[in-house]
């Protein structure tokens, strides 16, 4: 007669089957009844939500909800793909924008307006650790170039923070020398200034 019991909860209990205690059915049921009920309610609630999202519903039973959701998701994915392709097409055929240049020009002007100076500060906190602080003009992809330069010199940056304000960029980070020899702060400072100028 175990079929009778299992058939009713078969669809619900899939993972607990292995743990079912046949000789102890009643205890199992009563002990776990509330948990099982909660689980089932959770599942049914979520299915209801899923159903509410999907506009096209055929029948109202579990299987069809899932099926309809699958078809709807696929449809949406197709739409996304179509739209993104369209966008790419438009993108490729559109003209280049000249806006960034304007931004740069504006940035330099703003900096001057606010009296922010370009600066490079290096502080030696530990044998190999240096705190650096750079204020520079905001330029497009300057940060990337800076980071690249840092990496190429063998400096390892940790705890980097970048902020931008009115056309000026502030980079502060902790610099660890890859080469484990003592790094002179002054040397680093000069190095950094050169880098900033170059990028």
């Amino acid at each position, binding site marked *: 007669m175990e079929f009778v019991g299992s058939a009713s909860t078969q669809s619900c209990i899939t993972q607990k089957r292995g743990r079912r205690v046949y000789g102890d059915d009643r205890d199992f049921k009563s002990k776990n009844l509330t948990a099982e009920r909660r689980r089932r309610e959770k599942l049914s609630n979520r299915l209801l939500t899923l159903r509410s999202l999907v506009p096209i519903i055929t029948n109202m039973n579990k299987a069809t909800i899932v099926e309809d959701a699958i078809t709807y998701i696929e449809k949406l994915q197709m739409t996304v793909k179509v739209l993104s392709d369209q966008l790419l097409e438009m993108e490729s055929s559109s003209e280049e924008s000249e806006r960034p240049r304007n*931004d740069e020009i504006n940035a330099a002007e703003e900096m001057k307006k606010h009296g922010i100076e370009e600066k490079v500060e290096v502080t030696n906190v530990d044998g190999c650790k240096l705190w650096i602080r750079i204020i520079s003009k905001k330029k497009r992809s300057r940060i990337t170039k800076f980071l*690249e330069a840092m990496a190429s010199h063998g400096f390892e940056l940790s705890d980097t923070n970048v902020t931008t304000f009115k056309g000026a960029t502030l980079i502060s980070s902790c610099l660890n020398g890859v080469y484990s020899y003592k790094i002179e702060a002054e040397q680093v400072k000069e190095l950094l200034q050169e880098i900033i100028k170059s990028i």
Partner: protein
Amino acid sequence: MRERERERERQRGSRSQTLLLLPDPIFFINFFYLQNSRLLSLLNKIHPSLIFIHCFFLLQTDRRQPPDNHPKMYEETGCFDPNSMAEGGDDGISQSVKHHKEDDAAVSAIELELQKHLAFNVEDTHTQSISINSNTHSIHDPANQNHQILPPYEHSHSNWDSGVVSADHMGGFDQNENDQSQQSFINTDISSSFAQSQTPPLLNLLQFPRCTTSSMLPPNSSISFTNPDHHFPVPPPTSTDVLYDPLFHLNLPPQPQPPLFRELFQSIPHGYSFPASASRAAANSLFGEIGDERDATGAFYEDGDVGVHLDNRVLEFSRDLGCIGRRRETAGKPTKHFATERQRREQLNGKFKALKDLVPNPTKNDRASVVGDAIEYIKELLRTVNELKLLVEKKRCVRERRKRHRTEDDDEGMKPLVDPADQSYNSSLRSSWLQRKSKDTEVDVRIIDDEVTIKLVQRKKIDCLLFVSRVLDELQLDLHHVAGGHIGDYYSFLFNTKIYEGSSVYAGSIANKLIEVMDKQYAAVPPTSCAY
């Protein structure tokens, strides 16, 4: 169940001779069911005593004309007064059997009943051909295979158990042993033994020595012989009217094909208590192992009961004998829909799995989480679709604007950032949010208008800033703010960026690109260097 029967039999002691007095329905049930040897084995399993009756049926596969002495047989049986046998015991059959033990009348009556059933219920031929009178004559005919059965008839005496046993053995004969004559033997026996003084022949008729019958068994017969010593349970006819003549008047239509028990019983006029009870008894005995029924007293069962018990019995029956398969599954749902239910479950699981495969970030594997992920994904897809629509729209507007400007030729290199005419098109704020997860990276992209906030969490210790900023440059995002650092095993960063004008990135593209790059980096870096 069988043990219970046996116990009851033992308790009843000598009252095991109920075999012969199986009620009418059993006969035709037997007949129809035993068209197959499969059924035969089935019946044997269920109740050995039925075999006895089965033998009569099985032996006759052809349809033959009833012998001329058949009417005579009926007349004889008609004369029989069942009341004389009944003593109102709780088991009419056993009572009658007891009587029979004392005198052959009961036995012969039983036999007559048998024959009667055979005559009525079997389609035209068979039992009709059984001529009671011919039994005794052909008993000793060794040439006839069926006749061999008869000699055993005569061997044992006054031992119903053995008779039953032999009946059991008789049941072992399959249809191949179609022998009219045997039935005719029986018929003759019955008729001959109708008189009370003729007990021995009838008894012999009913008793088949084991050895003989077993030898006649086909080698591959699935019939299992029961222990001859085991007392067959007495199917309670619940009525002493077992031997009533009403059966004569019973005009049961021949069943064209082996009907299910239920149908059979339904075909029986329910007005007859005997048939009802008999049906029940038949059901009980056929399905066997139902000790409860055996103790039934002379109460008349109601038709409903029959159905109910039939259901129970059929349930056990069909579950015990899976080979008989999905017979009229009056049995409850479990057996009935076992295969379909299983299929349904598997289909449902397959659907859940498909749903899980669609979702980009599957978390857990249980149904509720899959559905939850699907919900989130659908919402995300909707957002993405809206965003893309907006972008396309914007792009189109910009294009048109540009064209217009070009044609108007009033552009001095400074394009207005926002055209009032366009604002109506782009009045809706572009907003989008999605998350992507990969093995080591988690990306959260939120876009409001032209500001993009990217949250990046990566597990391994790789200097990702460089790569990320590179990616962001590629995506034409202007890094405004970067914050983050170590958190335990993770790098966590927050990027505030602005989309450059004219760029048509959307959240999905950003996230995907980032994930792609990060994964590439992880793959490129050997694992040892990551460990600190």
